[in-house]
């Protein structure tokens, strides 16, 4: 299924819809089973209030995971997302305290995200170092910078109006869910409806073939890291807004959750395969498990085992289903 995607692009156009169904159908089924199970187990689960609550809880993971989807599609990995989120959050909070301008603060956070993403890309693409190592190093550097900058203390006393993005609502809908929705739509459009998406996918599927077809491989690999950096930055800003405090330790271990969502969503770590829609389903499954177990009141120690087991089962079902 993997290499056929760009071998005969015309053919895949007509089959795209069916492929989408077949590829993601298994995931969809798992999500539905989870939704029904939790609805039966807890009377509080299937309410509009809780479902909106879940969309807020997954919003940050989803945003960062969409960036990760770009990177994984090109056959690379970005381990620095959690640390970068913390660094961008600290940047935003510090700028907010210094200038009292929410606009400038958000801009600074996004710029920090993109800047670090750019360095990741530069070292990987032009420095020819494996992205695993580059971003693992960046995981340490970005976290260290956040800690040094703040002296290890959270930056608090932020102006209350800043909490809108992470904690506020637009009507009944959480603002961060809306933001995640917009990011999702843009990501979906970019990867599925534009030539850039086709290029990024081809690079991951077969880099040499992509180069021979005159695709600017280096440029697109760099773009993937830029997108991941930018969206990690956005994630960090939302965490800061949600907590109304920038924690230098925020997003610890986030990379694992994010990668889990992308892989659960059907992406392949070797590149070329994966969709933004699949990533959404992956993030939703993880979010629903977390939320559902809290509502049922599964005991604290047991939760981690159950979550791990459900994810493993989901991946197994998905594998068998898509063959």
């Amino acid at each position, binding site marked *: 299924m993997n290499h056929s995607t760009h071998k005969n692009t015309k053919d895949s156009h007509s089959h795209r819809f069916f492929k989408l169904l077949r590829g993601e159908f298994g995931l969809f089924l798992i999500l539905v089973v989870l939704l029904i199970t939790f609805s039966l187990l*807890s009377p*509080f689960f299937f*309410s509009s*209030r*809780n479902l909106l*609550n879940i969309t*807020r*809880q997954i919003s*940050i993971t989803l945003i960062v995971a969409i960036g990760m989807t770009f990177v994984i599609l090109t056959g690379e990995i970005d381990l620095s997302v959690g640390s970068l989120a913390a660094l961008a959050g600290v940047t935003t909070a510090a700028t907010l305290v210094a200038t009292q301008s929410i606009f400038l603060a958000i801009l600074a956070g996004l710029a920090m995200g993109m800047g670090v993403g750019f360095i990741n890309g530069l070292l990987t693409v032009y420095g020819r170092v494996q992205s695993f190592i580059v971003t693992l190093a960046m995981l340490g550097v970005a976290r260290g910078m956040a800690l040094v900058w703040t*002296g*290890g*203390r*959270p930056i*608090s006393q932020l102006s209350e109006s800043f*909490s809108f993005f*992470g*904690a506020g609502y637009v009507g009944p809908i959480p603002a961060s869910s809306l933001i995640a929705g917009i990011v999702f739509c843009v990501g979906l459009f970019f990867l599925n409806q534009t030539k850039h998406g086709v290029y990024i996918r081809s690079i991951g599927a077969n880099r040499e073939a992509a180069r021979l077809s005159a695709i600017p491989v280096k440029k697109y690999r760099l773009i993937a890291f830029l997108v991941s950096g930018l969206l990690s930055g956005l994630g960090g800003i939302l*965490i800061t807004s*949600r*907590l*109304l*405090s920038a*924690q230098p330790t*925020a*997003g*610890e271990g986030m990379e694992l959750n994010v990668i889990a969502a992308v892989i659960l969503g059907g992406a392949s770590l070797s590149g070329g395969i994966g969709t933004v829609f699949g990533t959404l389903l992956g993030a939703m499954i993880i979010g629903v498990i*977390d*939320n559902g177990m*809290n*509502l049922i*009141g599964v*005991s*604290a*120690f047991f*939760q981690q085992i159950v979550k791990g087991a459900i994810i493993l089962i989901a991946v197994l079902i998905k594998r068998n289903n898509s063959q």
Partner: protein
Amino acid sequence: MKKVVVLVLLSLVVFSLGFSATKTIGFCVSTLANPFFVTMKDAAEATAKEMGFTLIVLDAQDSPERQISQVQDLIIRNVDALVINPVDSDAIGTAVLEANRYNVPVITVTRPSRMGKTMQHLDIDNSQAGRLIGEELAKVLGGKGRVAILEGIPGAPSAVERQRGFLEALEDFPDIQVVSSLTANYSREQGANVMEDILQANPFLDAVYAHNDQMALGAVRTIAAAGRTGEIKVFGIDAIDDAISAILKGEMSATVKQQPGLQIQMALESALKVLAKETVEQLVIVPLKLITSEVLSEE
């Protein structure tokens, strides 16, 4: 007439439901990776059994983001009251505001919330704990010596207060010198690692004061590995089980008992009082107890 009957019946049903249903209290704990809070959780479960209410314990694993989600989940789960042990005093704020919005009473333990309305906060006087240890350390060293400090999470109010109280106690002993003060983030593993560095940098050392027992026990391992057990005295705070046995074995000199079980029991009792519309104190200071080998042999 019909309407009145229906209304009376309805209100009776509502009343009886509200009256007979057992209360549900959510307990959001910062981390169960720390035995101190495991003691708290066990005591909470025992209290729930004894007093006949439903208890839901959720573990934030030291992540403020996760804790906020858990508080929201419990609000949706319709808990009657929340007892929160915040991971971070600032970061828990928006969650407390949300609980306020849905009229779920909140009680905090060990760390307060900087925002929103809480019915009660239960705490120990952390500076008092530091002071108790400072005085005991001076007594053990005979008022003279070189001391290293393992600090808790930088900026955490408990760490700041435990440091302050300790240093205040040492003011009366000018011959006791603090040669190193580094953070090990309340973690046993980091306590062991940082202690290694401290030993490298300070060949002459008489005592270590750690802001909690976890770090103290980490230091105990490093000191044992260096073959200097007993030579370097170790002091901690929290009186977790491992620290008690370390004191009995002579690996540690003293710790301070905060009585986490008593603390959560008082918090849950207050929660029930709030639900019964009784008034409770805004701030409760849970009494402390210095634990040494003499105290243990008396018990």
